[in-house]
């Protein structure tokens, strides 16, 4: 997928003027944080659980080679196969090769952000395989030819009227009289269409919320049950995974599951938690004949040992974006690639380069709300700052900002000069601004004063007044 992260500002501008998006974001801003807060308040040990979760992931990252090997051994021991893919292209080709071998015309898909990362749908379509998204949100954006705007609520940017319109345009045999005004009627309509597709598919592709090394299991959590049908009705189940998903044991899994749903949707547990361990066994009543885990690296292993390593603890709950005031007004598409919000601001530059995604770590007020809710205690603002350091070193930030910063820093490091300049400027601005107490516009402050006034200085700097006071009392 071609990133548009370079155009973050323009994307954001468009988002700010999109009435439907703003309505959808308004509901998200109040809904998710309140639900999370309520469910966390009912679990006094939540913070201790976060520490445990963090420790589990740190341990995995410190012993990654070991757990990757154990995971593969256990997948193979149960009749499955692990495909190690360095690049998105390798991962796409691996998936296509399995589809071709099984002569698959249709694949059903559960939600997979790795699938988005490698733009799997486009690739399959170009190669004659029809992907059908079965997660309701993913299905909606697939028929609208859009990208997810949120990692757990892909169609977060839409209001239900837009979804009803899309269904009426796409579902040709939909009775025009059928009401689609409510979420429940929309779900029923999507079910009707998707049910047929589940039976037609030869291959089912899902993501993985976790990969359990000791059993070789992959785990998905959903609220729709679509993932279960995707993987159990088809000839082959392909799981798209990455380093972040690995946990040592089932015990560790249970710790992380207790954190995930609470952080993500404010549920104590998701409706469905499905562990898949190998293909169908002889005495199983159903299940796929083949079980494949496609493990994508895409630059992640190179992050180990750098200042961005903590990012690999991420369990993709979306709490950071649910609580981000910037995401909350611009939505996910503005970020211009697969992963939006604070986690995207850190992860995207590692995956597509900071040249491409340089805006993302800058578009944060460092309010710290993301870090305060992150179940894995990932220091997101600190890592965004690390990206800014790299951008500054490589002179990637806009030259006017850089020069202004250097000029300011030059003065700020010379107290007498600083004193002279600030005393003079506060005098001038204070005098000019005194009649109204504020400025409606001011040269070089157009960005600020377009939508708000700039309060005028009182007129004398503190330091000059303090010096006078000291003189008087001396």
């Amino acid at each position: 997928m071609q990133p548009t992260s370079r155009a973050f500002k323009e994307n954001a501008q468009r988002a700010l003027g999109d009435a439907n998006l703003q309505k959808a974001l308004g509901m998200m801003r109040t809904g998710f944080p309140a639900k999370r807060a309520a469910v966390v308040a009912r679990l006094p040990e939540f913070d201790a659980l976060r520490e445990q979760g963090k420790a589990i992931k740190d341990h995995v990252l410190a012993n990654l080679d070991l757990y990757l090997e154990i995971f593969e051994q256990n997948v193979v021991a149960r009749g499955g196969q692990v495909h190690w893919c360095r690049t998105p292209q390798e991962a796409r080709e691996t998936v296509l090769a399995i589809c071709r071998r099984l002569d698959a015309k249709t694949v059903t898909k559960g939600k997979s952000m790795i699938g988005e990362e490698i733009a799997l749908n486009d690739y399959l379509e170009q190669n004659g395989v029809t992907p059908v998204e079965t997660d309701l949100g993913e299905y909606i954006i697939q028929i609208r030819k859009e990208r997810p705007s949120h990692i757990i609520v892909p169609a977060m940017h839409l209001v239900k009227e837009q979804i009803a319109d899309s269904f009426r345009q796409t579902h040709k045999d939909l009775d025009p009289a059928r009401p689609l005004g409510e979420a429940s009627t929309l779900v029923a309509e999507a079910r009707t269409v998707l049910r047929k597709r589940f039976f037609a598919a030869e291959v089912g592709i899902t993501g993985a919320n976790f990969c359990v090394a000791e059993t070789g299991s992959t785990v998905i959590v959903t609220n729709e049950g679509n993932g279960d049908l995707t993987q159990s009705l088809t000839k082959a189940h392909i799981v798209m995974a990455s380093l972040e998903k690995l946990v040592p044991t089932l015990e560790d899994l249970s710790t992380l599951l207790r954190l995930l749903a609470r952080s993500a949707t404010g549920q104590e547990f998701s409706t469905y938690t499905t562990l898949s361990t190998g293909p169908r066994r002889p005495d199983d009543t159903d299940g796929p004949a083949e079980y494949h885990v496609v493990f994508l690296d895409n630059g992640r292993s190179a992050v180990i040992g750098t200042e961005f390593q903590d990012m690999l603890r991420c369990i993709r709950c979306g709490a950071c974006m649910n609580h981000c005031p910037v995401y909350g007004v611009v939505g996910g598409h503005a970020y211009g690639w697969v992963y939006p919000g604070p986690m995207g601001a850190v992860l995207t530059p590692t995956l597509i380069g900071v040249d491409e995604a340089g805006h993302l770590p800058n578009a944060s007020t460092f309010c710290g709300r993301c870090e305060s809710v992150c179940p894995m205690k990932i220091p997101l603002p600190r890592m965004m700052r690390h990206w800014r350091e790299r951008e500054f070193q490589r002179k990637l930030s806009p030259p006017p900002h850089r020069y202004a910063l250097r000029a300011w820093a030059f003065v700020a490091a010379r107290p007498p000069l600083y004193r002279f300049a600030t005393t003079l400027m506060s005098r001038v601005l204070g005098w000019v601004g005194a009649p109204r107490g504020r400025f409606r516009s001011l040269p070089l402050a157009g960005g600020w004063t377009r939508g708000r006034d700039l309060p005028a200085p009182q007129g004398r700097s503190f330091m000059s007044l303090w010096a006078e006071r000291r003189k008087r009392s001396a």
Partner: protein
Amino acid sequence: MSAPPIRVGLFVTCLVDFFRPSVGFAAVKLLEAAGCAVEVPPTQTCCGQPAYNSGDKADAKAIARQVIDAFEAFDYVVAPSGSCGGMIRQHYLALFADEPALHRRAQHLAERTYELISFLTDVLKLDRVEARYDGVATYHDSCSGLRELGVKEQPRKLLRSVAGLRLEELPGAEICCGFGGTFCIKYPAISDRMVADKAADIAATGADTLLAGDMGCLLNMAGKLTRLGKKVRVRHVAEVLAGMAGETPPIGAAAERS
């Protein structure tokens, strides 16, 4: 014989120095009333945060060294800002992580640096002030003070002791106002929308006064409220706690003509 007074170095902050010296004098009054001897080192300028958050570590370090030099001799360093307080308390340590000698000095400074209101309540154990303010006030929790320094209850506790003042809680008080230092310059349209939402929340409380503990957020919120024509008086919490609100017009308001 009484104990010698606590020597406090006041870190004025660049925004208070430039925009609103009355906040600095309110801080001095509160500290002196609580028995501190306040000094204002003349070599202070800024804490270095604009450079630090822009990825310019070299300049951030130069300015941070200047702060360490100016303030390390005091018993305590106090700033009427959670943002600058957080910078000195937490981020100087990260800046000098690879320079042991400076890291030790930064550590020493960090341990004795406080945001003004939490210094009054947590260190000086102040639980009330002698002040009067007639009005209904709402309070915005500035992000750095709240999340880096744990400033939440402290200002509310002292505000409850102000005669005539009723505190009306602000829904979403912990959500960023959109100032974000250089953020409001780099992304003004996003910043403006964030502060528009904040202004709507403030207006919905019906409070006639908005208080907070950080000049940046206050300039941002006051500027939006006046642009929208809202009659909300915006002040730094220290001005009200020091009983000095009568001495100067609210932020963004003109002096009343006599």
